[in-house]
């Protein structure tokens, strides 16, 4: 799951290429890696890739801060 999310972010959402690969514990929201439009795209990707519906009230910092947070959120939801 992590690899799929990281691959999607790296290929589609990053502002520019990184020297080191993106890690699962890197802050996606604060670091200036992805803009707000990118976050929306990520949510759409996760919904279709993992066949889940993410309601607006779940779109929080706690659930989306890092790839690990996203994974934890998806695991709990299922």
């Amino acid at each position: 799951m992590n690899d799929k999310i990281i691959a999607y972010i790296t290929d589609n959402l990053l502002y520019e290429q990184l020297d080191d690969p993106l890690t699962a514990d890197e802050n996606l929201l604060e670091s200036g890696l992805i803009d707000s439009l990118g976050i929306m795209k990520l949510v759409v990707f996760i919904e279709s890739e993992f066949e889940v519906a993410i309601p607006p009230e779940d779109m929080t910092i706690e659930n989306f801060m890092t790839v690990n947070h996203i994974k934890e959120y998806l695991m709990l939801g299922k």
Partner: protein
Amino acid sequence: MQVCWAFKPSVAMIFSLVDIVSLNSRKFPGKDAFRFLSSALTHSELEEKSNKLAKHLKDKGVKRGFRVGIYMNRCLESAIAVYGILKAGGCYVPLDPAAPIERSRFVLKDCNIKHLVTTKNQSRKIKKLLATTTEVDCLIGCELEDMPWSFSWEDIFKLSLKDYRALQIMEQDLAYILYTSGSTGTPKGIMHTHYSALNYAKLVVDQYQFDTSDVLGSTAPLHFDMSTFGYFAAPLAGATCTLISDMHLKMPTSLVDFLKKSKITAWYSVPLILIQLLQTGLLKNEDFDTLKWVLFAGEVFPTKHLRSLMGIWKGKTFGNVYGPTEVNQCTFYNLRTAPKSDAPIPIGRVWKNTEYKILDENDKEVSEGQPGLLVIRSGTMMKGYWNNPELTKALLYQETIVPGANAVYYRTGDLVQLNTQGELLFLGRKDRQIKIRGFRIEIDEVENTLLRIADVAEVAVVVNQNNDEKVLMATVLPRDNRALDVGEIYLFCKLHLPPYAVPEQIEIWKEFPRTGTGKIDRKAIAHKLTFSKYER
């Protein structure tokens, strides 16, 4: 009428932005000046820490007028950086950490920045930036290996102020330079002085009657002119400025929660953030009783969304704020009740210490009620464009009232019209400047960037509307039928343009529709392009 403390006798002590902080540290030492997430900085801490940064910068060679870069997101250190640089006599130049390295490098070089202030969490990008830049020889806020000229914030805060002597800051001194999109293909720097910035802060405090009880919510990054509201107007009112984190802006649901807990009394953002808050559907469940002012600027707020928001947030005053970066703010339009129709709301009337004219193509004033180009004269006006007196001259309109004392207006390039109530209506642009998510973009800059690709012969960049969002789209013609790769063009854009100026859609065409005179028919291109045909 309530009288703000800033206009009691003590206002006579404020001649520059740095005087605000010094005065506050004596009047309200223990009160929060800035808040960020769960931490805060009191007025006395801001005074002491910014003095320490100023001392260090002076020791490292900063002199009056030196440009000092700030490379960080909103955080408490950003306030220390702003006032520390100003106290050293420097002029701060905010760099966008989300911008491509090449753009930051351009800014560093363009205004010769030797000192850069940052934070530890920017270290990845800072290393990349410094690896290809020779300008910078003093880095503050991030200690890096093999760089004896880099210092941590802890190093700075350990300094003693025993032999520190404050520099006399003059109101004519340069305070900051904001870079914005330039039509030639490179960004241009807008210079503001302590005088213009302080005038802006005074007008905000007067217009919205802010006082020590207020908590102002600031959402704008430092490189965006809307940031001066939080960094300058809030301290002038003796109010607290809450710097809202990027994390919250990207996660509207968390922002609703934060807004509720932070007891903000005045909000200021681009309309998009308010629309995102509205679209969470969570606003109606909460009580935001401390919130009095909801101010927005940067681009047009679609009236239907404004009306929905006003339907939920009853009893608050909404304020449409207008003004190009060159003049900070210049007009205001406040609403207590929601507009009845979907017609765009006015940008309103000019505030104090400001006057305007509406001119035709030949610089003659139009007759009342006719559309024309807005020119503005105000105490909040910029000094000019950095290192570009020709452009400065071209965008100023001068009128001789008394020989030797010309009235100097800034040509906004905005088309406006006066309505029957004497309010200004914004009609659009005379050139190809657009706003996306509040950010100012010259389409010519995007086109000129694409033209730098060797195999590209011609380009046409157009704006299409996708629901409420404006979307940039590019079409390119290859040179001599050479093979072009969309992915590579996209990458080139990402390396040379800020994220908001990168076209959402790029297509390679064989030919362009042309008008009778052979010009590229951009209207026809915009029509032909439909969103999401090309998934990048």
